[in-house]
């Protein structure tokens, strides 16, 4: 099972989700990276593709836990399970990230 967050949220509307992904993409572009929406699965899981300098980056789990997931959830207003196309990491690694490196407090400007 992908370590993507296993909450059971109501699926965000498509336009809300698109806006959230655009916010994530913009934030990652600050580091020459990016993200784009691949699909939203029937179970609500949002699958993203990493682009730019994020492609092939070894540290994608930190970006997922620290930036992508919190920013997307802040943007859509609720918990969203997120995974990265073609990438998986252990639950243990994600749990450790959550424990040792919680996401930074988000500022409103990132989701406008």
């Amino acid at each position, binding site marked *: 099972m992908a*370590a993507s967050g296993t909450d059971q949220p109501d699926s965000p509307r498509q336009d809300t989700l698109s806006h959230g992904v655009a916010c994530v993409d913009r934030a990652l572009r600050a580091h020459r990276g990016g993200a784009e929406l691949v699909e939203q699965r029937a179970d609500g899981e949002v699958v993203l593709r990493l682009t730019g300098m994020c492609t092939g980056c070894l540290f994608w789990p930190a970006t997922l836990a620290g930036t992508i997931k919190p920013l997307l959830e802040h943007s859509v207003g609720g918990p969203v399970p997120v995974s990265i196309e073609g990438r*998986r990491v*252990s639950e243990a690694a994600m749990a450790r990230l959550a424990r040792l490196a919680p996401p930074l407090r988000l500022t409103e400007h990132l989701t406008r």
Partner: protein
Amino acid sequence: MIDGIHVFDNVIHAYDLSDENLRPDRADAVTARAHMVGALGPPRRQDPAELSRAWLADDMYSLVFEQSSTDLAMAQVVPIYDWYTNWFAPVNAQYELARKYPDRVLFCGGVDPLYEGLDAALAALEHQVTEMGARSIKFYNGHVEGSWACDDPKVAYPLYEKCLELGVDVVQFHKGIPFGDQNMETLRPNDLQKAARDFPAMKFIIHHLAYPYVDETISIAARFPNIYLALSGTVSLFMIAPVRMQHIMGRLLYEVGSAKLLWGSEAALVGSPEPYLRTFMDLAISDELMDGYGYPQITRADKEAILGLNFARMLGMDLARAVASASPIPGRP
């Protein structure tokens, strides 16, 4: 089919390792053959005399289909001429295997632009595709003498252009695992990066994880959407070094993803693919490695993708339908 999963082997070879195929002008041909059998052969050594022969279509059918769970396979030419008169895995032997068992075996041609020149390679490539039904082309760019770069616009690119022109959009490369005394650096995978950039419509398969250039290979496959990895030449590690294989598979799943990995047995040199298939099906990443290295667990869906779905998708095939319509294999339920 193994445990309900279809098996589409990306690479088998009807080798010609006979004495008659050894080049008489190469004093090191016998040594090189022994090295190649050792490098790609099974962990439990068969009699070298058993391997050092020409493998015929019926031998291969028995080995791959009657003695294992494999459903479909691609027979690949290997254009290694350094020690072999008629190449390591000759064109006609692979073609004959596919011709004789067309619903089980696909033909992968092979050419070399420096063997008899680029024009001859282009003509052979066109013949193999249009007259012999090649679905893919195999390249071997590293030689003792006459190596070429996979991103050379004058030597390599015309071959890719010809492939695309003929409707072949899957090309394959032996990378890493150098043989004999050839320079190993010519078999680094790095020269496929520019090629993959310049030919986005082409799918490039790197074989053998380009061992020992595994780090580079993983980085390249992780970053280029049109670069895929065949596990060929590494399947023996499932038996020899299972924890190491957990590391390799864990890294591949973490950084590359199972959608870009292909099962490749390298039969006949490994013997029957069956014990490797069984070991792969039994593979699990340990809790210790998942915790310490962040590797995800390998799932049944991963194994299903790796064992056949990925390669079928690359070739535009419906795997279940292809298997269902193939002739029955004697002894199989």
